[in-house]
C-alpha cells in the first residue's frame, strides 16, 4: 500500500516537472500556515567577511543518514545535519514530491555547495559553516507545528553556536 502511494507521488512529480502549468492545481490546493508580519534582521557584515550556512528543503541528506519518511502523507518535519566538509558524492535525495533525476546527477542545482566553495576560494564569500541543513519540503498538517516548534529552533541554536552570519535557503 505504502509503496503504491509512493509510486503515485513520484509519477505526479515527474509529470508536473515536465509540464509546470499542471502544478498550479497542486499549488492552489496547498494551504500554507498563516503567517503574521515579516521578520527582519538587517545585514551587518560584507559578504567577503561572512560565514554562510546552506539550508535546503530539497530532501538532501548524507548517504550514511536515515532517509526522510516518505510513507507519511503529511511529510517528515525532521532535518539532517550535513557536514560542511562533505563531498557531494556522499549526499543523496529522499523526496518523492518532485523529480530529482537532474539533481541526482549534479546536486549543485538544489544544493550549490561546490559553487559556494568556489566563491570562498575566490574571496567573494567569507566562509562556509561547519554544518548545513537538509529538510524535506512538502510538510503539511500537524507536522508544520513540529517544524516550527522543534526543528527550526534546533537549527537556529546550531547556527548561533557555529557563529553563522548568513543563511541561503534552496527548495526542491
Amino acid at each position, binding site marked *: 500500500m505504502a509503496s503504491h502511494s509512493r509510486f503515485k507521488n513520484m509519477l505526479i512529480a515527474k509529470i508536473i516537472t515536465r509540464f509546470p502549468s499542471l502544478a498550479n492545481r497542486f499549488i492552489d490546493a496547498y494551504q500554507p500556515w498563516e503567517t503574521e508580519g515579516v521578520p527582519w534582521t538587517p545585514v*551587518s557584515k560584507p559578504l567577503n567577511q561572512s560565514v554562510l550556512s546552506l539550508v535546503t528543503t530539497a530532501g538532501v541528506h548524507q548517504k550514511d543518514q536515515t532517509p526522510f519518511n516518505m510513507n507519511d502523507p503529511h511529510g517528515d518535519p525532521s532535518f539532517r545535519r550535513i557536514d560542511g566538509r562533505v563531498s557531494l558524492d556522499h549526499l543523496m535525495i529522499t523526496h518523492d514530491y518532485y523529480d530529482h533525476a537532474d539533481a541526482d546527477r549534479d546536486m549543485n*542545482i538544489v544544493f550549490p555547495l561546490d559553487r559556494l566553495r568556489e566563491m570562498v576560494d575566490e574571496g567573494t564569500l567569507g566562509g562556509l559553516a561547519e554544518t548545513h541543513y537538509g529538510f524535506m519540503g512538502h510538510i503539511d498538517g500537524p507536522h508544520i507545528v513540529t517544524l516550527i516548534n522543534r526543528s527550526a529552533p534546533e537549527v537556529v541554536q546550531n547556527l548561533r553556536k557555529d557563529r553563522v552570519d548568513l543563511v541561503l*535557503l534552496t527548495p526542491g
Partner: protein
Amino acid sequence: MGLVQREIEKAGIPTIGISIVRKYSEKVKPPRTVFLRWPFGHPLGEPFRPAQHRAVLEKAFDALYTVDVPGTIVDLPFRWRREKYEK
C-alpha cells in the same frame, strides 16, 4: 522552506531564499526572496552548468544586500534554457 527561513531571520540571522513557486512565497512571506519561473527541482538551473548556478547565486546575494523592504520578492530575468551564461 519559507517557514524555516522566517524562523531563522526571527532569531537574528539574515536570510535569502530562492523560490520557484511565487505563490508560496507570496503566502508565506519570507523576508527576502529571488524568484525564478523554472521547473521544480531546478532552483539553480541545469546540471553541470556552473556559470548558470553562479548567475543565480550572484542575483541572490545582490538581493540580500539591496532589499530593504521586508517580504520583497525579486523576479529574476532568466528564462528557462534560453539564456547564455558561459562567457
